[in-house]
């Protein structure tokens, strides 16, 4: 069934149609929240809050015929992430304390425990660097790095100029480079 039909039905109170929309966007929103907050419980709270708000405001979405549901629901998700971030004030957890699962960037080396340990170390290092970014910059980086949004899309989502987004991404990458360069020097990685 087409998304527009599901939206109309969900707006009319059809809970099953809204459930289908939830199924379509749950991973996107949970991914956004987890990558931003790095905490499973907080990310689940954001997932729930986003869809509750989406349900309440579905009528308003319909009035904007040209808007995509994906962008609209992402904006609600971002708002929920910022609220959660403010409430919890960096209740940050690295992947060690969460149920994060290693992805297989190189299946051949995945079996190598040393490689896995080092990748995990990079992951934690990267998460710690991003933790220090201001909230908006952190969101811009997360949308670019994890959600694969273009600069233009990030600007539209965050309501700022493309120039501002470029500056935030530049600052983010410079900070990451500065820290990971040291790390690269220490480890003399073979993985590259």
């Amino acid at each position: 069934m087409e998304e527009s039909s599901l939206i109309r039905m969900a707006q009319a109170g059809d809970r099953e149609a809204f459930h289908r929309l939830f199924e379509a966007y749950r991973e996107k929103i949970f991914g956004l929240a987890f990558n931003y907050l790095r905490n499973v419980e907080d990310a689940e709270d954001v997932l729930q809050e986003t869809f509750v708000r989406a349900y309440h405001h579905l009528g308003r979405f319909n009035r904007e015929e040209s808007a995509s549901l994906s962008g609209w629901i992402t904006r609600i998700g971002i708002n929920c992430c910022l609220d959660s971030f403010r409430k919890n004030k960096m209740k940050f957890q690295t992947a060690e304390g969460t149920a994060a699962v290693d992805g297989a960037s190189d299946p051949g080396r995945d079996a190598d425990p040393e490689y896995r340990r080092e990748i995990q170390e990079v992951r934690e290092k990267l998460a710690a660097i991003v933790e220090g970014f201001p909230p908006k910059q952190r969101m811009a980086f997360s949308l670019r790095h994890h959600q694969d949004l273009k600069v233009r899309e990030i600007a539209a989502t965050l309501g700022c100029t493309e120039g501002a987004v470029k500056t935030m991404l530049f600052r983010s990458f410079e900070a990451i480079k500065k820290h990971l360069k040291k790390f690269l020097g220490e480890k003399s990685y073979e993985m590259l």
Partner: protein
Amino acid sequence: MKCSKARKMMVLALYDDLQEAERRAFEEHVRDCRACDREWEESRRVFALMKSAAGESLPQISWEKNWVKINDRLPGKERRSFGFFPSRGWAITAASMLFVLGIGIWIGQLLFFPSGREVSSRAEASPGSLQPALLDHLEALKPVVVEYSNYSVDRNGGDRFEIDRALLQALITQNQLLKQIIAEHDPTAAPLLEDLDLVLKEIAIQDSRGRRDPATVKEIIDGRDIVLKMELFKRI
């Protein structure tokens, strides 16, 4: 192209987020500039490392459990027939409250806050008109919030922030009334109105003590991302 510009473009080049002409100019510069070429090589190594680490899968969670929690928080189907309100009882209660509040607003504004009448008088008309009233309220607040958010000691050079006392009082009253009326029906608006309440009260406190410290107000606005949230709220 200058080296500084090329350095700024590197992150976008890594994400393949440059326009065709920009990409050509960037590649040309890196080809001809040894320092930027070295920097580019280093950036690519760091980026590769970031990408290796980005292979992290999302944690496994129970989608069903989350759906059940969401579903529990949604109003029932039959209750949607009353539109904005979950049931007839709620609609009557809200209408009564709106009526009482409307009278209060009207009397209050007539006596004390003539400048705030136009916007909040729309809030008392009907539940359907609350949303436009809220958007109007945010529009009215935007210049104040943005001005404080843009404050910098270097640029502003001290206390040059003046806000009409009657206008400030009107904005505070409007904000509080909207907070009371809208908050329970609109979970998105409640935290934003709370934040705005804090900002307005801080301005009012400073004003009453005869001192102005725009940096404190700016800190609240920036710390809570209020400008961004106002912008996002308009777009949702």
